[in-house]
């Protein structure tokens, strides 16, 4: 897959989009999508557009090409934080809006799109639109979760929240099976700002589905002891470890994943309250290892993240059993309870359960995931486009019923379909 990657200034974006060739153009952030959302074979890829960051009252005005890593390093010393942070800081603001990403706070505050006060979007006709929930909401809700197919974001104004410290008070609890985990999350997730669970999806027999639930609140100044009180805002640093290149296939195998899952489970306390973790280690544990994806070897892996409505929890249990039976070992399986959906036409979350899996690409996986797609679509669920690299056009159509409305907005702002990506081609978007 080859495309032309360009870096231009904000004032050249309109001209660059207008003069895109027959294979079109898409904006790319830091390229951390697991799939082909920011790839454009034969066409143009626009690299992040930098710019200055400034506060506007309690909101922050930031260029779309700014990473959440840099943004957090700007906000924390000012006692502010983002209400929504995904599992990595190495994504850009533009990418976070285009994928309408979510974090451990979704059940309380919704997606990244919900934090956007307004944004500036360049459409293929060269116009710059100021969009937001109250300004051209039609184009705004097509852009939030729109995978970059409505235009190129230049900058955004985001809501921030006050934090007394850069620490999180974390409660950790272990569960022997999936059923007791989901019962606990149903019962008491609403009492916590942040909540996520790790699930063992590889062990055999009764250990299958054992899990560790971790929930947190921003720590107050009074929660910090002497040493931590002296650094109330520890800044997230750069990765300290890097995975080597040239790892062969098979390192992430069923055996190694099972061993890892066993360790992870037993290292977690049965129940521990009030442990202090830095924001970086609580929200972005994988950011500590650079290029961790290399550990999967040349065949690589796919991410599969599904969501199903509350009433269809059984689909999650089935998915875990099915993948385990097929020998498809997920290094990390994450379960989270989502709050209500927003108005984003292609936004992923719906109220219910989301399960995210990292699956090594091996024979037989394709058909298992195809079957899961069908089950998920049947109950009104969907898979996450930001992580997808293998969904079919027909499954997509079944999962995203508002795709027609999305196409009508694109007819308005991009009738020539200049904005294009491999994901768009694959899904018939």
């Amino acid at each position, binding site marked *: *897959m080859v495309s032309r990657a360009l870096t231009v200034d904000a004032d050249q974006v309109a001209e660059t989009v207008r003069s895109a060739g027959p294979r079109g153009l898409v904006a790319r952030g830091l390229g951390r999508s697991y799939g082909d959302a920011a790839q454009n074979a034969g066409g143009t890829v626009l690299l992040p557009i930098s710019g200055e960051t400034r506060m506007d009252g309690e909101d922050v005005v930031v260029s779309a090409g700014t990473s959440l890593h840099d943004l957090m390093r700007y906000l924390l010393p000012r006692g502010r934080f983002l209400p929504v942070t995904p599992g990595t800081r190495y994504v850009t603001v533009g990418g976070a809006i285009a994928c309408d990403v979510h974090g451990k706070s979704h059940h309380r505050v919704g997606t990244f799109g919900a934090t956007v006060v307004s944004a500036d979007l360049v459409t293929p006709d060269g116009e710059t639109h100021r969009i937001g929930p109250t300004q051209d909401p039609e184009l705004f809700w097509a852009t939030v979760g729109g995978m970059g197919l409505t235009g190129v974001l230049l900058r955004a104004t985001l809501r921030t929240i006050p934090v007394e410290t850069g620490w999180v008070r974390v409660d950790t609890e272990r569960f022997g099976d999936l059923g007791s985990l989901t019962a606990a999350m149903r019962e008491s997730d609403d009492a916590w700002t942040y909540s996520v669970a790790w699930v063992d999806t590889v062990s055999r027999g009764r250990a299958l589905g054992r899990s560790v639930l971790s929930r947190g609140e921003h720590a107050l100044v009074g929660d910090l002891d002497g040493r931590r009180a002296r650094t109330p805002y520890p800044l997230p640093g750069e990765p300290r470890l890097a995975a080597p290149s040239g790892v062969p296939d098979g390192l992430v195998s069923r055996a190694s994943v099972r061993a890892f899952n066993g360790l992870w489970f037993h290292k977690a306390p049965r129940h521990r309250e009030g442990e202090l973790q830095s924001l970086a280690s609580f929200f972005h544990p994988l950011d500590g290892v650079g290029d961790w994806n290399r550990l999967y070897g040349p065949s690589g892996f796919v991410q599969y993240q599904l969501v199903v409505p509350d009433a269809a929890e059984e689909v999650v249990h089935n998915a875990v059993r099915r993948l385990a039976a097929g020998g498809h070992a997920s290094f990390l399986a994450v379960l989270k309870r989502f709050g209500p959906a927003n108005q984003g036409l292609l936004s992923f979350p719906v109220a219910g359960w989301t399960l995210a899996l990292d699956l090594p690409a091996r024979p037989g996986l394709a058909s298992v995931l195809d079957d899961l797609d069908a089950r998920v679509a049947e109950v009104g669920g969907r898979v996450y486009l930001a992580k997808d690299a293998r969904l079919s*056009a027909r499954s997509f159509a079944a999962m995203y019923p508002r795709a027609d409305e999305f196409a009508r907005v694109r007819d308005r702002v991009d009738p020539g379909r200049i904005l294009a990506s491999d994901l768009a*081609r694959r899904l018939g978007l």
Partner: protein
Amino acid sequence: MIDALGRPQSLLLLGGTSEIALAVARAWSDAHPVVTVAARPGSRRDDAVAGLRAEGFEVEVHDFDAEATDTHPALIEAVASTRDIDVALVAFGVLGDEEEAWTDHAAAVRLAQVNYTGAVSVGVCLAEVLRRQGHGTIVALSSVAGERVRRSNFVYGSSKAGMDGFYLGLGEALREYGARVLVVRPGFVHTKMTKGREPAPMSVSADQVAEAVVRGVAGRAELVWVPPLLRGVMSGLRHVPRPLFRRLPL
């Protein structure tokens, strides 16, 4: 697009009535690719298309004559005008009667034109499209017969040797454009084309060749042998001295 698990959304079969080509389509059936059958009009093509449609494939049909090379550019452009070509299978070829192939002038020329000139012709047209797309894979059905040409079928073998070399080179040339070429070297394949011939050792079915194609595309391979063991065998045979080689029962 070819997805992350190596499955195409569109499949062009050049020589779409060949058993191996149809087996390749079936091997990808769970990915539901749109299949474009390019072949000479006639009952064989009608049967192939009807069979694919009965199995649930969306099928498009184009007239294709491997010898009519001046029609190839327009044909490939027509196929590429509706959707990206994800995988193109160069599956046409003639075996002919081995003795006639070097004693009958017309038969020899035709074999060379179909198997070599025709293959080069579509290869150049496909390369043009794939360069523009920035992605896509050409699968060229070669043969171990081309790896060391033998007395018993040397006209066929030499034509395959030529197309094999062309496609390996094309793969190198296309690397920087994001496109790929997979050269497949099967041994003896049980098909209509080889019916009535004495099977060579390690013979395979069309389905086995198809499986190798599916795996090769998913694994981004450049050259595969079917069965894989043939790689070692052929590697050895290449170095057998000629006086000994001609005595081998091959």
